[in-house]
């Protein structure tokens, strides 16, 4: 029973990390109708920028702030220069080719700059150490990840539900053309949402580095899990990203705890079952 509770906590930690990723991916899809296959690359890039910040400036907190800002700015540039040319209902293939190509190029550039060896980032001094919890010494940093994830979910929820910007974004998800017709520059909204989405991925990269470390290939590992989360939760909604993350995070954790040989199988089995019962995901928008 005690170990069950600890695994529940572990599942929550991983879910919140997945949520930070999935929120951005889902937001970008819901708003722009673009499946960003480079989302894992922005995660890894954020993590590596964080690594450099921690090494140069010895501050995890600064890394947590600066990496998302830098990657967000990069997102703005990429949206303006490339992605803007690829919007449209019938251009999914172009978007997939572009973002996948971007992911491949990013993987090589990251390897070129940071090397192929595994790198690790220590958690900040304040959050290193453990607190005793039943049979284990639970790392404080992991508890911090839960706090960050829940806080982020609340903040994003408030942003989308309670602010004018959120109303525009939600309206854009429902019908971008109508929003445009009402005199709102939808391109600015798209650019902002893309920047916010990839900044969240970078944030997840910095947050995840002390737990999952950094190495070439992690970009695609995390991308696939995030895609599963978003598909399970339903594309385009924050609530879907949140509950999808919980479901997949728990499936991953309890799969590893009880049936480690079938962990990956379990995750995809969950996805298959959800899609059979609800083809557009748990909280997916109808017809998406």
């Amino acid at each position: 029973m005690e170990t069950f509770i600890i695994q529940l906590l572990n599942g929550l930690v991983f879910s919140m990390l997945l949520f930070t990723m999935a929120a951005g991916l889902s937001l970008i899809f819901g708003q722009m109708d673009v499946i960003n296959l480079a989302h894992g690359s922005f995660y890894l890039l954020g993590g590596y920028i964080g690594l450099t910040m921690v090494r140069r400036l010895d501050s995890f907190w600064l890394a947590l702030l600066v990496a998302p800002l830098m990657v967000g700015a990069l997102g703005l540039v990429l949206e303006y220069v490339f992605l803007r040319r690829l919007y449209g209902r019938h251009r999914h293939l172009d978007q997939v080719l572009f973002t996948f190509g971007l992911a491949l190029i990013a993987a090589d550039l990251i390897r070129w700059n940071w090397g192929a060896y595994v790198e690790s980032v220590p958690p900040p001094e304040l959050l290193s150490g453990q607190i005793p919890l039943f049979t284990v010494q639970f790392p404080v940093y992991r508890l911090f990840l839960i706090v960050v994830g829940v806080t982020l979910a609340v903040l994003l929820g408030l942003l989308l539900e309670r602010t004018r910007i959120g109303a525009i974004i939600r309206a854009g998800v429902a019908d971008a053309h109508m929003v445009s017709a009402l005199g709102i520059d939808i391109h600015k909204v798209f650019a902002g949402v893309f920047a916010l989405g990839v900044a969240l991925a970078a944030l997840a990269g910095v947050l995840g580095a002390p737990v999952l470390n950094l190495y070439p290939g992690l970009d695609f590992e995390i991308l696939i899990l995030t895609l599963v989360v978003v598909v399970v939760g339903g594309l385009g909604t924050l609530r879907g990203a949140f509950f999808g993350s919980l479901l997949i995070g728990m499936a991953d954790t309890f799969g590893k705890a009880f049936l480690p040989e079938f962990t990956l199988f379990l995750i995809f089995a969950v996805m298959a079952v959800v899609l059979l019962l609800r083809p557009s995901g748990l909280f997916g928008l109808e017809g998406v």
Partner: protein
Amino acid sequence: MPDYAAGENTITSFAHSFVNAGGEIIGVQRTPFPNMGDPAPFMAEIADAQPDLVYAFYSGGAAVTFVKAYADFGLAGNIPLLSSGFMVEEDVLPAQGEAALGVRSGLHWALLLDNPVNKAFTAAYKERTGRDANVFAVQGYDTARVIVEMLNRVEGDTSNVDKMVEVLPDIQFESPRGPFRFDAKSQNPSQHIYLREVREVDGVLHNVIIEDLGEIADPGDNSKDLQV
């Protein structure tokens, strides 16, 4: 251990010797290969099982993930961690840092191995690459050496493959790892295995050799004969 062939081989071999020596195995974890993702669930299971020691086999990214999580969850220092030497080799030690302190491992080489061939090799490697050598570099070096020795023995005549295979078992030389030759039965290397422990040497973490366990022939793929 990672859920793939080399993981099975390593764990099977360890379990075989361990049980024969009177040890009892209370659990085996097969983790997704090549990377285990979030390692936390495995740590919680280890803490729950409270074994007297943990033996693990990982390499590369998974080795860093595992060793760091083992320390993060306070298991390091409480439950001794043994491993195949790849898990704490020079390629991953810098990323593991202090989390790897005290990990004991068996391997056919160590950076600090004190023999003239190794000293020359490690110095040349560092000069060329700027990094310390690791066991993979040594294995590549030795593989090339075996190829060169074989070509010498057939005097460069690669047309007769049977002849090349024939001369292979007789090849032996002084490697950075010590004397190197092939085992007649398994056709795998027969070499010295060293018991090593991660310690701080002049402010840097290295695998310090505690004991030379003598020449041991690699049994090869024994996963079909033994089961864990």
